[in-house]
């Protein structure tokens, strides 16, 4: 019964989404007020019904209803409760439902926090979001119904993939999807602005906080995914340039460009067309990511068992979205007026170059990711000679990422100090000479402290320090420009939050660079065969293998290795990596033991039993690896800080007042009109 309610709720949500996608938009075009007014209640209703549907699926999982096919294939009665819930998004159908619910949630939030927007704008934004929801709900109902029944019911479930039975998986997909789907709001704002022909600073100010928060979620989601891969896959990598990772990185990169471009649109009224285009691209890349993950066209560690029908549907949806929004753009963009003029050396130019570099990186990642598909398609069309299947290796991405990051980081340092319209480059460089000298000294010293000169390490350190020192300088300059008579706290408070947010996020980038550079250049690892009592030295620590004991978990049995870590002959800790076998799927899984520290992680995982109690063991010493995730956390905090900037609220209040006045005068005029009549 409950699953049928879930499915029925989904169908109602689809009907509401269709209404939401048609009437408010038409209402805004034809100026029919009641149609526009439908937007909010219908959008809220749509969200409520998707949430009901989602709750029904959770219920099926929690109550072990294995007459639901999806639950039977992704859960098991022995599974701990938190993984039963997380199992809901452990497979294709459920994660799409989660996606649809996130879209509903964003729509709901827009409907609530848009009191001060003009009615046409709200109607159009919610309408566009409704159209997107129609696409996803149709996709769910037609190709991936999570409520499909299994008759007769399975006696027990096939269990959730053991790799996914982990805390990281509970939060990684929801966070990532909040980010992915969040760009639909920026997209909806852009399309609404194109429809209404209203592309101004006010529009940029409305869509900016939404974009920033979506970007923050996406950053958090990517960071969590990377952290999960690090500790769960058992080989200590944190980024693999896997197509699915790339699929989340591309919209994030374009989103980063969008945030910077929106700044110009808001402050200087420039880059309007470019901003709109970026919003369209960011969302299209989110859809492309879904296509890549769901269709299985590319070999990836994330690929689910796939179905060509689903791939075709998403591809068709992607094409419709991209083509229709680009057509709208081509039709409307020429009417958009130019922004303010600026000199070749100015903040605008720097943000422009920043945008170009980030877009190029995103494009290069895109090329590397879909290159196998391009080659195959060209070959099947007979345009090039058919070859064997190809794949693009990780070195390709590194070869592009690193050289392009250098100029980008230079701009991160100098951009915040540059003036709008016209900046004085020699003067800025003079001001920043100490920052540069400090960075250079750190860059020379750190590699020697870490154990030896490495060019890449020095480069990484100079970039990271450059960001940090220039940020400090820039905050100091800003602080000095505040009223010196006020107390410290007031002066710090006088600086807008978005300014702090920007520097927090930039410093986050620096911290990530430190982590990434140092761990890749100074990591040491050993794969060894260890008999009981054997020791191995890695990174100044001695690891002694004391054998393996068997332990029993709720739904697995494991061999637990006992490894003593010694430093200067003293025992400092014991690490207990496990090799688990999950009983339902009889799938082996390596559970690494990690000692996390500020300066280094010690990471031990078990390979296989070799003979007579000996095991193959993998031991890593990973300096500064946790800085990678600390950096991501700073970026997220930066985003959240920027989003809560006062001006969004102050301006919102002003706009609300203006709107109320406008309405009052409207009513007044219509009254006069009726009286005259």
């Amino acid at each position, binding site marked *: 019964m409950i699953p049928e309610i879930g499915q029925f709720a989904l169908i109602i949500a689809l009907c509401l989404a269709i209404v939401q996608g048609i009437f408010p938009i038409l209402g805004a075009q034809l100026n029919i007020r009641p149609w526009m007014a439908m937007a909010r209640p219908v959008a809220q209703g749509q969200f409520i019904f998707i949430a009901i549907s989602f709750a029904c699926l959770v219920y099926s999982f929690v109550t072990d209803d294995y007459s639901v096919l999806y639950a039977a294939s992704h859960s098991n009665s022995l599974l701990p409760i938190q993984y039963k819930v997380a199992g809901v998004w452990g497979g294709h159908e459920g994660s799409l439902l989660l996606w649809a619910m996130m879209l509903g949630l964003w729509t709901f939030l827009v409907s609530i926090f848009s009191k001060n927007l003009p009615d046409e704008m709200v109607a159009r934004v919610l309408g566009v979001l409704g159209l997107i929801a129609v696409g996803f709900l149709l996709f769910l109902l037609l190709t991936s119904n999570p409520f499909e029944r299994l008759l007769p019911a399975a006696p027990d479930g096939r269990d959730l993939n053991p790799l996914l039975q982990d805390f990281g998986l509970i939060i990684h997909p929801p966070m990532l999807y909040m980010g992915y789907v969040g760009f639909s709001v920026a997209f909806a704002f852009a399309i609404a602005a194109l429809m209404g022909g209203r592309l101004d600073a006010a529009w940029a100010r409305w869509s900016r906080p939404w974009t920033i928060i979506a970007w923050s979620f996406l950053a958090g989601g990517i960071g969590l995914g990377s952290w999960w891969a690090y500790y769960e896959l058992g080989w200590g990598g944190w980024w693999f340039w896997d197509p699915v990772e790339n699929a989340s990185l591309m919209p994030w990169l374009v989103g980063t460009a969008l945030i910077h471009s929106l700044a110009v649109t808001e402050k200087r009224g420039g880059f309007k067309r470019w901003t709109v285009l970026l919003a369209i691209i960011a969302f299209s890349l989110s859809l492309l990511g879904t296509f890549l993950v769901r269709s299985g066209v590319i070999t990836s560690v994330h690929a689910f068992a796939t179905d060509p029908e689903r791939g075709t549907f998403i591809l068709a949806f992607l094409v419709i979205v991209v083509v229709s929004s680009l057509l709208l753009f081509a039709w409307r963009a020429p009417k958009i007026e130019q922004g303010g003029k600026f000199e070749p050396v100015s903040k605008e130019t720097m943000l422009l170059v920043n945008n170009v570099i980030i877009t190029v990186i995103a494009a290069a990642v895109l090329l590397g990711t879909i290159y196998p598909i391009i080659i195959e398609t060209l070959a099947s069309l007979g345009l090039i000679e058919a070859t064997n299947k190809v794949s693009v290796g990780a070195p390709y991405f590194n070869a592009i990422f690193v050289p392009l990051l250098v100029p980008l980081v230079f701009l991160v340092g100098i951009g915040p100090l540059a003036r709008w319209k016209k900046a004085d480059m020699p003067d800025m460089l003079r001001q920043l000479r100490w920052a540069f000298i400090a960075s250079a000294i750190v860059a020379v010293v750190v590699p020697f402290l870490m154990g030896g000169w490495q060019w890449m390490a020095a480069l990484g350190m100079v970039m990271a320090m450059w960001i940090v020192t220039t940020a400090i300088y820039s905050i100091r300059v800003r602080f000095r420009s505040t009223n010196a008579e006020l107390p410290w706290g007031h002066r710090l408070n006088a600086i807008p939050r978005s300014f702090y947010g920007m520097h927090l996020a930039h410093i986050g980038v620096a911290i990530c660079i430190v982590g990434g550079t140092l761990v890749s250049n100074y990591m040491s690892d050993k794969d060894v065969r260890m008999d009981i009592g054997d020791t191995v030295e890695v990174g100044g620590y001695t690891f002694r293998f004391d054998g393996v004991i068997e332990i029993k978990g709720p739904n697995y049995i494991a061999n637990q290795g006992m490894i003593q870590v010694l430093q200067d002959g003293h025992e400092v800790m014991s690490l207990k990596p496990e090799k688990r076998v999950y009983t339902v799927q009889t799938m082996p899984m390596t559970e690494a033991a990690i000692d996390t520290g500020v300066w280094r992680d010690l990471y031990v995982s078990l390979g296989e039993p*070799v003979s007579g109690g000996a095991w193959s063991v993998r031991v890593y010493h990973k300096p500064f690896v946790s800085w990678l995730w600390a950096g991501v956390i700073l970026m997220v905090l930066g985003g959240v800080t920027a989003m809560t900037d006062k001006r969004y609220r102050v301006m919102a209040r002003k706009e609300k007042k203006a709107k109320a006045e406008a309405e009052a005068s409207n009513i007044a005029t219509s009254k006069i009109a009726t009286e005259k009549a």
Partner: protein
Amino acid sequence: MKARYKRMMFIVLGLVAVAAIAALILNALQSNINHFFSPTEVVANEAPKDRTFRLGGLVEVDSVKREDDGLTVHFNVTDNSEIVTVKYTGILPDLFSEGQGVVAQGKLGSGGVFEAEEVLAKHDETYMPPEVAEALEKAEDAAAQGAAK
């Protein structure tokens, strides 16, 4: 005149930057593409000799052998028609097992042994890399044709 000159400078600089970036990307792409070969193709000498490529198929049952160091593993990859022996030093991914699909990346060494630098892991045990599925299908078709003749 001056404004025009400046604009020209910008366009030239922009073009140079675009050309440099394009060269960077194409060069990186050129040297990092890995082709996929099936055991049949490797045996027929179609695979490159000194370049990294990907070999895929099924791990032949009862073919996994470990050397005394406990880390070097030999196993056979088959497309049910031909066999290539793979040598790999290190710890194999969890989902590596006999009879399952596998993709290994590496180079062809002496004596036709494929020296793998990396053996790819998959999240899902029911998942078969499309390349492997295709290679198996091809070999089967070829065998069927051979039988028909």
